[in-house]
């Protein structure tokens, strides 16, 4: 072991070495040796963190070596500077507080956004071989239309790993496609519905990292009836992780699984979250081959990816009939969360543009805060011009003054960092609530990261402090006492303020657009009425499925229950929807249309409140309706080229006989507003199906709900009823947008607030420069309101200028964001008008305090100075 750390020399060591060399070049080697020895001992006895902190402390104690030989001179100088700076800051409390608050808000906001963006970008990177894991995805290319799927049949993963030696391992994960599972244990006899049940190959734990608290990860899933569960489930069903081992869980009254492992909750930044993982060995080899699911490959390190993908077509061709359109591809695990645009994704993924926008907002805020700092420091410096003058007359060097001013800035920066760090720490739960997910804090509390962040912030402080320091220190004493300085050079500060406001305006416009788009989502006419539609999942209610007619009749006797219909899946539940090909009877291959398929029973259209444009809904009185009739949506009718319903028959490979189109329903959003409306075919199949939708009267919803539950308990006494409203389900689809909107809007408010602080600083500076002018004007008879307008208008012009310059950019950015949505708002010009008005008003309020003060001042007080 020649080096203290890994091969890379860490920042901490570098810093320590440099400091030691600087304070005492003569015995540097000796000291470094001692430090290293002590570090290694601490590392062995305690932890890495303790060792690093001790190293930092030990290095710090060595600083006194610097004064050992060189005498006291340098130390004296810096002590005086430090004391002076503290006194100056303590004397000007309002300045110190405003500046510290501005900077710490900026830093805190930037830090939070940094943590958030980092979480988004670090998805799935907690697996120790995450960069070697790929998901096999399925491209169906047809008529130039790409339909990439995240799922494939299980056999491909096995075949690929057998054929290509670069594949070290593979794992297949089969989800329950959005349904909950009824889980029972001995303690919870009646069972509870749970999300997050999956089946997986036993190789799961060798591909992905799971943190086992009990059980052996290597062998946990080998036997057919085994299951590993999360700590949460273990606690819920067995009281404790240690008690769960070897116990039995039952799923859906069908299969018993023996618990062979308990793992710690999967981190929030994983693209899927499984609570219970059962061994896939429960299924036969053939079944495992044919199940659709997610397949992951673990490749050798630095494997040639392209060569592997190039080998896929040959593999596919040898197993599928010719001219097959299926194409396999690989998707890096780390890119799933931000770069995936696949159908049938495990969990909703994030929108990369939104994450980047948020990152941009963070940079904006940081920039605004720094400019603000520069502005305030400079403005404030001009008020202490006499102090500078006196010091210079008494023989201070320019370098002395610069040092002292920079010390002041650094002190403020350090205060601000402390305040920001503490408030981020305290606000973290709130931010996580706002963001809708836990932030990834791994590594944040390591000394390495803290040190890097600290150095970055200090650099920022020095840079922001440098300009005001040099500017103020450059005043000539003669000018100062002749009072010839004054305004003039405020152009830079003005442009800085204008720049701050420009950014605030972008943020305001941006958050208004985001807000409007979400409102649009929520208020858009979906083509149906989901508000009073109550959904009951029927997946495991066999009794009810068998006696559906009786159940239905009993419910319909209730006056406030209007109608009901069973369906294979809910509108919006794309993951459970079938896809098929249809063509008009006698149509050619070219006329084939790819459609989505809804399987329902009678009363589908009236339950969901769909409008029938032509023809009729399914009817119980017409016998053919249950076998050979379908409804299609308007888009499908258009694609198929049906102008009327006479002789509108379609055929599809999966059904023997032709199907008659009996009605066309108006397009409705059966997927989500992210996707365009696709052609849709609605079958009527009287058999049991996954979901029951009941439409209720608006009044007395809770009592209607109770009546439904009463009837349910009659038919399914063993199973708790679950229900939710369809509209809630839709709203959930937009949680990602809602969360990012929350963040963007909160940070916009902060940014605007900081910009106002900056404007306040500028106003202070400019007003003091114009005191004499105001005095003269007053003597000559100017009124207070007139003066106020004169003083304030300058700033209003500044803000308006910022607005004019920045509007096109805001427009461009907004339209860029909106292109991600299939259904989107058009950008209204009044938003811009509103933003301009809002910002101007804020600016006016901000400057009015100082303007009024100056406008009302007694002219004799100013002019008697002369």
């Amino acid at each position: 072991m020649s080096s203290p750390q890994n091969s890379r020399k860490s920042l901490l060591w570098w810093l320590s070495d440099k400091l030691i060399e600087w304070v005492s070049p003569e015995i540097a080697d000796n000291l470094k040796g001692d430090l290293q020895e002590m570090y290694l001992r601490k590392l062995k006895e305690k932890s890495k963190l303790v060792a690093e902190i001790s190293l930092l402390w030990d290095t710090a104690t060595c600083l006194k070596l610097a004064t050992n030989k060189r005498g006291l001179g340098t130390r004296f100088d810096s002590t005086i500077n430090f004391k002076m700076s503290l006194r100056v800051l303590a004397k000007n409390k309002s300045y110190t507080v405003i500046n510290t608050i501005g900077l710490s808000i900026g830093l805190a906001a930037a830090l939070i956004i940094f943590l958030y963006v980092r979480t988004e970008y670090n998805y799935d990177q907690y697996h120790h071989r995450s960069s070697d894991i790929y998901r096999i995805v399925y491209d169906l290319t047809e008529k130039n239309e790409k339909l990439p799927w995240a799922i494939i049949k299980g056999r491909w993963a096995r075949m690929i790993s057998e054929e290509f030696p670069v594949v070290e391992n593979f794992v297949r994960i089969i989800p329950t496609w959005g349904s909950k599972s009824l889980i029972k244990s001995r303690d919870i006899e009646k069972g509870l519905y749970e999300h997050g049940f999956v089946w997986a190959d036993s190789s799961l734990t060798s591909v992905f990292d799971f943190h086992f608290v009990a059980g052996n990860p290597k062998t946990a899933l080998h036997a057919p009836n085994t299951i590993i569960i999360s700590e949460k489930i273990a606690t819920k069903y067995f009281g404790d992780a240690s008690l769960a081992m070897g116990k039995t869980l039952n799923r859906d009254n069908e299969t018993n699984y023996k618990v062979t492992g308990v793992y710690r909750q999967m981190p929030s930044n994983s693209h899927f979250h499984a609570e219970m993982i059962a061994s896939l060995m429960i299924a036969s080899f053939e079944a495992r081959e044919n199940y659709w699911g997610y397949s992951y490959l673990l490749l050798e390190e630095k494997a040639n990816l392209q060569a592997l993908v190039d080998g896929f077509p040959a593999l596919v061709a040898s197993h599928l009939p010719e001219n097959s359109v299926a194409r396999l591809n690989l998707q890096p695990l780390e890119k799933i969360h931000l770069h995936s645009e696949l159908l049938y994704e495990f969990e909703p993924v994030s929108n990369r543009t939104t994450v980047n926008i948020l990152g941009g907002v963070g940079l904006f805020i940081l920039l605004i805060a720094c400019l603000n700092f520069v502005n305030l420091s400079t403005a404030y410096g001009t008020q202490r011009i006499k102090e500078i003058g006196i010091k210079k007359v008494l023989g201070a060097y320019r370098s002395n003054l610069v040092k002292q001013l920079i010390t002041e800035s650094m002190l403020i920066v350090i205060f601000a960092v402390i305040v920001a760090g503490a408030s981020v720490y305290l606000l973290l739960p709130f931010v996580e609530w706002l963001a809708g997910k836990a932030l990834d804090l791994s590594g944040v509390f390591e000394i390495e990261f803290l040190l890097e962040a600290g150095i970055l912030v200090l650099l920022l402080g020095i840079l922001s402090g440098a300009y005001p320091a040099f500017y103020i220190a450059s005043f000539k004493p003669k000018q100062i006492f002749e009072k010839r300085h004054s305004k003039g050079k405020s152009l830079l500060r003005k442009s800085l303020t204008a720049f701050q406001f420009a950014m605030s305006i972008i943020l305001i416009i941006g958050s208004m657009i985001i807000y409007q788009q979400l409102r649009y989502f929520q208020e858009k006419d979906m083509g149906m009425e989901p508000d009073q539609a109550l959904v009951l999942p029927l997946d495991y209610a066999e009794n009810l499925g068998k006696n559906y007619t009786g159940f239905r009749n009993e419910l319909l006797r209730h006056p406030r229950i209007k109608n009901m219909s069973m369906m294979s899946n809910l509108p919006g539940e794309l993951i459970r929807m079938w896809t098929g090909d249809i063509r008009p009877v006698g149509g050619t291959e070219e006329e084939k249309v790819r459609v989505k398929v809804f399987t329902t029973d009678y009363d589908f259209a009236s339950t969901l409140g769909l409008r029938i444009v032509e023809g009729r809904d399914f009817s119980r009185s017409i016998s053919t309706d249950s076998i050979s009739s379908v409804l299609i949506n308007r888009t499908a009718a258009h694609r198929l080229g049906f102008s009327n319903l006479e002789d509108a028959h379609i055929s599809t490979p999966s059904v023997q006989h032709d199907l008659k189109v009996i009605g066309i329903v108006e397009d409705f959003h059966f997927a989500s507003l992210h996707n365009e409306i696709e052609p849709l075919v609605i079958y009527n199949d009287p058999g049991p199906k996954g979901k029951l939708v009941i439409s209720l009267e608006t009044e007395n919803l809770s009592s209607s709900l109770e009546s439904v539950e009463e009837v349910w308990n009659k038919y399914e006494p063993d199973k708790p009823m679950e229900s939710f409203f369809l509209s809630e389900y839709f709203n959930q689809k937009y949680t990602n947008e809602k969360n990012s909107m929350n963040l963007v809007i909160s940070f916009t408010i902060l940014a605007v607030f900081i910009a106002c602080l900056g404007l306040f600083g500028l106003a202070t500076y400019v007003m003091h420069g114009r005191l004499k002018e105001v005095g003269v004007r007053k003597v000559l008879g100017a009124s207070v309101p007139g003066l106020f307008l004169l003083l304030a208008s300058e700033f209003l012009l500044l803000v308006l200028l910022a607005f004019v310059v920045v509007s096109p950019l805001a427009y461009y950015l907004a339209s860029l964001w909106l292109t991600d949505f299939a259904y989107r708002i058009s950008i209204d010009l009044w938003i811009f008008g509103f933003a301009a008005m809002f910002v101007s008003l804020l600016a006016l309020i901000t400057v009015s305090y100082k303007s009024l003060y100056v406008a009302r001042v007694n002219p004799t007080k100013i002019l008697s100075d002369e």
Partner: protein
Amino acid sequence: MKNYLGEFEELILLTIGVLGEEAYGVSIKDEMKLRTTKKPSIGALHTGLQRLETKGYIESWEGGATSERGGRKKRYYRLTNLGMETLKKAHELRNEMFDVITKLAWNEQPSK
């Protein structure tokens, strides 16, 4: 005061003397921690060592490199004759004065 020896400096000299040929930065620190309740910081220790070496009370030479020091050599310290002399003087001075204290105490016993 040419031969002035601070309390901390004296402690360092004593420790080096105790350690014999094995006195270097970390071992001196450990020994001091062991024998007194004080825990000197490594910076303070080296400040003292540097001063003592300038005054000529100790001398140093480089020993072998070890892996736990990242390949850096240990610098060993030992007392010079002057250092030993000063230590003795300080000790004698102390003993003499302490004797005076005990004598005084003896004399003030109520003897009559």
